[in-house]
C-alpha cells in the first residue's frame, strides 16, 4: 500500500504540475504529438482529442478501425460491430463523424454491412446500425447541439442528403431511428432552377454575368448535380450547408443551404473549383469555405461572397469567437504547408505553424484548444494561453 502522504504529494498539485510540464515542452502555442504509427486511410479527430483512424495492421496486411488518444498516443480500443469482421482488406472506404461532445461516433466502412454504425465511446458500446445505403457516404456531420445528424452521398444514382433527429436517451442507448427524418434526393436537387445557365451566371462567385467564367470559358450549358459531399450545420441548427458536386471532371462545385429539418432549399451558391471544406461562424451568419485552395466567406442571408486574403484547404471556426483555424498545404514561394488562425474581424493571420498532410481540424467544445491531425498519425495541438 502506498502511503497517503506520497499519494497526496503526487495528486495535490497534479493539474498545475502537468500544465507547467506542458508549457515547458513547447516553444509556441502549438504542440506536436505522435498518435499512431503507419498511414491511415481515413482519420477524424474529436473535440475531446480522440482520433478515429482506419489504420493498417502491419502484419496481417489488412485494415481495422482504431481509436487513439492524442495525449496518450496509444490505441484505446478497436471499433467492432457484433457479427461483422473487425479487419478487412486494405483500401475500403470509410467515413467517421464525432459528436460535438466526443461521446458518440458514427462510422461507415466498406468492411462492414452498408449501414451507418453508432457507438457510445463513454459506455464503450456499439449502439446499433441505421440508415442503410446504396452509395457509400461521402460525408457525415453532427449538428453542434447534437440534435441532428446528416449523411451525404455522391456517385449519382441514389446519391442524397439524409437528416436524422438524434433522440435524447440515456447513455448506451441507440440515438437514431432506422429511417431519416427527411431526405434530399439527387433527383429533387436536379429539379432546382439554379442549374439553368441564366441562374448560374446570376449567382456566380466571381460575379460574371456574361455567360463565361473567370478564364473566359463558356458555361452556357445547364449544370447537372452529380452528388453531395461535405456538409456543415449552422450552430443555431437552422440550416445545413452542403456541397453539391456537379457532373464533369472540371466542373465547379456549388453550395446548397438547406432548411432544417425539412432539407428544403434556402439558397444555392456557385463556387469556383472544388470545395474542400466549409464551416459556419459561431453566430450562424457566415460560412467560411475553401475552394481551389482559396478561402472565402459567404454571408448566409445575402449569399454575398468575399474572397479572403489567404489560401486554405481546410477550415474550422471557433465555437464562440470570430476566429477560424485553417490549413493550407502550400505557401507562396514554398511547397511547405502551414496551420494558422485568422481573426475574422480584422482578417489578420496569427499563430502560424509549419505542418504537412493535415486532413482534419477540430476545436474543443469550450474553444480553449484545437486539434489538427494527419494521415501519418501526427497531431498538432493548438493551446493558446489566451483565447
Amino acid at each position, binding site marked *: 500500500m502506498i502511503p497517503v502522504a506520497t499519494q497526496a*504529494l*503526487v495528486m495535490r498539485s497534479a493539474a498545475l*504540475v502537468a*500544465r507547467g510540464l506542458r508549457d515547458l515542452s513547447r516553444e509556441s502555442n502549438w504542440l506536436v504529438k505522435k498518435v499512431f504509427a503507419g498511414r491511415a486511410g481515413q482519420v477524424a479527430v474529436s473535440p475531446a482529442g480522440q482520433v478515429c483512424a482506419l489504420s493498417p495492421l502491419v502484419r496481417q496486411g489488412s485494415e481495422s478501425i482504431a481509436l487513439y488518444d492524442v495525449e496518450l498516443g496509444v490505441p484505446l480500443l478497436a471499433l467492432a460491430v457484433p457479427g461483422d469482421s473487425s479487419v478487412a482488406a486494405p483500401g475500403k472506404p470509410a467515413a467517421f463523424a464525432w459528436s460535438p461532445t466526443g461521446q458518440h461516433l458514427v462510422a461507415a466502412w466498406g468492411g462492414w454491412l452498408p449501414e451507418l454504425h453508432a457507438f457510445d465511446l463513454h459506455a464503450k458500446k456499439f449502439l446499433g446500425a441505421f440508415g442503410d445505403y446504396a452509395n457509400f457516404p461521402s460525408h457525415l456531420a453532427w449538428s453542434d447541439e447534437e440534435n441532428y445528424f446528416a449523411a451525404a452521398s455522391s456517385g449519382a444514382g441514389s446519391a442524397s442528403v439524409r437528416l436524422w433527429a438524434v433522440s435524447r436517451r440515456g447513455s448506451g442507448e441507440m440515438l437514431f431511428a432506422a429511417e431519416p427524418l427527411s431526405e434530399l434526393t439527387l433527383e429533387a436537387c436536379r429539379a432546382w432552377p439554379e442549374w439553368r445557365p441564366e441562374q448560374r451566371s446570376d449567382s456566380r462567385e466571381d460575379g460574371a454575368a456574361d455567360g463565361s467564367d473567370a478564364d473566359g470559358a463558356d458555361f452556357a450549358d445547364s449544370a447537372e448535380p452529380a452528388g453531395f459531399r461535405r456538409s456543415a450545420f449552422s450552430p443555431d441548427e437552422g440550416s445545413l450547408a452542403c456541397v453539391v458536386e456537379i457532373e464533369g471532371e472540371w466542373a465547379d462545385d456549388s453550395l446548397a443551404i438547406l432548411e432544417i429539418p425539412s432539407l428544403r432549399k434556402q439558397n444555392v451558391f456557385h463556387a469556383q473549383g472544388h470545395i474542400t471544406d466549409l464551416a459556419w461562424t459561431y453566430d450562424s451568419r457566415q460560412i467560411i469555405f475553401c475552394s481551389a485552395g482559396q478561402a472565402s466567406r459567404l454571408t448566409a442571408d445575402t449569399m454575398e461572397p468575399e474572397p479572403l486574403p489567404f489560401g486554405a484547404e481546410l477550415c474550422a471556426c471557433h465555437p464562440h*469567437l470570430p476566429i477560424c483555424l485553417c490549413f493550407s498545404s502550400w505557401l507562396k514561394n514554398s511547397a511547405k504547408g502551414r496551420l494558422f488562425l485568422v481573426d475574422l474581424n480584422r482578417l489578420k493571420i496569427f499563430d502560424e505553424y509549419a505542418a504537412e498532410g493535415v486532413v482534419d481540424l477540430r476545436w474543443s467544445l*469550450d474553444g480553449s484548444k484545437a486539434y489538427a491531425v494527419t494521415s501519418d498519425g501526427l497531431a498538432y495541438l493548438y493551446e493558446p*494561453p*489566451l483565447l
Partner: protein
Amino acid sequence: MALKAADPRPAKPGAASIPKPPKPEDQELARKLDEQAATEGDLAERELRVANLRAELSAFERRYLHFLGSRYAELDECKAQLAEQFARQHPENERAQQAAREARARADETASAAGEQSTQEPRAFEATPEMKRLYRDVAKRIHPDLTSDRDDRAKRQRLMAEANQAYEQGDEAQLVKILNEYECSPESVKGEGAGAELVRVIRRLSQARGRLAEIEAELQQLLRSDLYQLHERVRDAEKDGRDVLREMSAKVDEQIAQARGRLESPDADSR
C-alpha cells in the same frame, strides 16, 4: 568411508568439558538474526531513499507553487474575466455563456490548487550526511515492520511518521529525540527463549520484506509522477545555468499583462 573408533577411556575428573553443540533452534536463530540485520540495513537504506525523494519533491512542489501557482491562478482569473466580458457583450451567444461559466470554474479550481503563496521563497531540500546517518539509525531501530508486537508496532508507526516529517524539515534534534525516546522505552527490551525469539524474527523478516515491496511501489509512483518529470527537467536546466522556474514565471507574467491589457481595452483585439 572409514569410521573413527570411540575413545573407550573414562573422562578424567576436572578435565575441561567438551562444549555442547549448539541447538538447531539456536543455529537457526543466529542465521535468521544475521538475515534480519541485513534486511534491516537494506530497509533503512531504501526508506532513506524514498524519504529523500519524497522530501525533495515536496520541497520542489513548494518552490513550483511559489513561483507558478499564484501566477497560473492569476492568469486563469484574467481568462475567466475575459470570457465573462465577452459573454456579457454577446448575451445571445449561448456557447460564450457556457465558456464563461467553464472559465470561471477553471479559475476557481486553479486558485484552490495554487493555495496561498508564501512571501519567502521555499528552500530546496538538501539532507546533511549526519541527517542521513540519523535517519538510517531511526529506520533500523524503530521501523514498524521490524516488530511483531501490536502495541510496539503502533508506537513505531507514530514515531516513524514523526521521523519522516523531521527529516523533510531537516530537524536533526528531533530525529535524535525520537531515537532516544524509543531506545529508553520498555518495548526496546527483547523477550527471552530461542524458540519464541525465532518466531519473532521470522515474522519481522516477513514484515520487512513486505515493506520493501511497498517502498518499491512508492518509489515507482514518485518516479512516474509529473512532479518528478518536471523536477528533473528543472534540475537538468539548472546544471546548464538556467533557472527554469523563473523563466516560466516571466512567461506567465507576460501572458497576464497581455490579458490585463485586453481586459482594459476589450476592443483592441478580438482574441
